[in-house]
């Protein structure tokens, strides 16, 4: 279950939220296709569940894409790292709960 950092009202980033936000710019179909490519480039099989560390791997793969898709990867990386830092300060183990 995703944990929230109550002090900051911040939920753990998730794959679902990441794809939904990408769809705001790319449209749903292209967002899903780009996400699948980023997963594969991270060495993660289609459909395998992602913990926070795997999500960070996908974000870093996405950030290497050209153009605005890469910017989306950078944005996701910032969201994950913010969560990880605050989770650490708040004693949430690894910020990588399942």
């Amino acid at each position, binding site marked *: 279950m995703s944990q929230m950092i109550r*002090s900051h*009202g911040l939920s753990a980033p998730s794959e679902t939220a990441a794809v939904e936000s990408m769809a705001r710019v790319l449209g749903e179909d292209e967002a899903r296709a780009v996400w699948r490519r980023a997963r594969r480039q991270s060495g993660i099989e289609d459909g395998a569940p992602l913990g926070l560390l795997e999500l960070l791997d996908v974000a870093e793969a996405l950030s290497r894409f050209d153009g605005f898709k890469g910017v989306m990867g*950078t*944005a996701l990386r*910032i969201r994950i*790292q*913010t969560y990880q830092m605050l989770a650490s300060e708040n004693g949430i183990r690894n910020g990588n709960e399942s």
Partner: protein
Amino acid sequence: MNHSEPNSGLEKTVGTDQDGDERLYDAGRLDAISKLDRANLHDDDVLNAIVKEAAVRLDLPISLVSFVLDQAQVFPVNRGLTGWLAEVEGTPIEWSFCANAVRDDAPFIVEDATTNQRVKDIPLVKNEGIRCYAGIPLRLPDGSVLGTLCVIGTEPRSFSPDDMSTLRHLADRAAARLAEMAAIE
């Protein structure tokens, strides 16, 4: 100038302005940012000097070049950040003061964050102690607004016309430098 203090009549809540949202999620704007995403802005002497001058001349502890992305803001050149903000060099977009300047396509000024409707509830105010902010949009020659040059403080304060003129001048210099670097990338 858009001044968003409580009595200005211009208060909005982040996320409710459709035109502003379109500006934030515009693929062309994000593409413009991507030209600089991999440039080594962090070590650029010109941008670092501008950020330092902004903090010194406006007598505030924090100053940044921020890029407003789709889901986060990132601070590729920054001065005065501490703690996790210094580590991450960015925040989620919903905590961003600078996103308001991009949404409005105008300067964003907060003299007391605890009473400003657009920012009073965000964690940077409630948890991290930010109390005042002034940001000027950074615009490339093609019109793309990347983010802001901004100054931030931990005490409420007003910003005079001279303060804003100084910040605008420095933002113009920062935008010119970013345009130069974007052309090289």
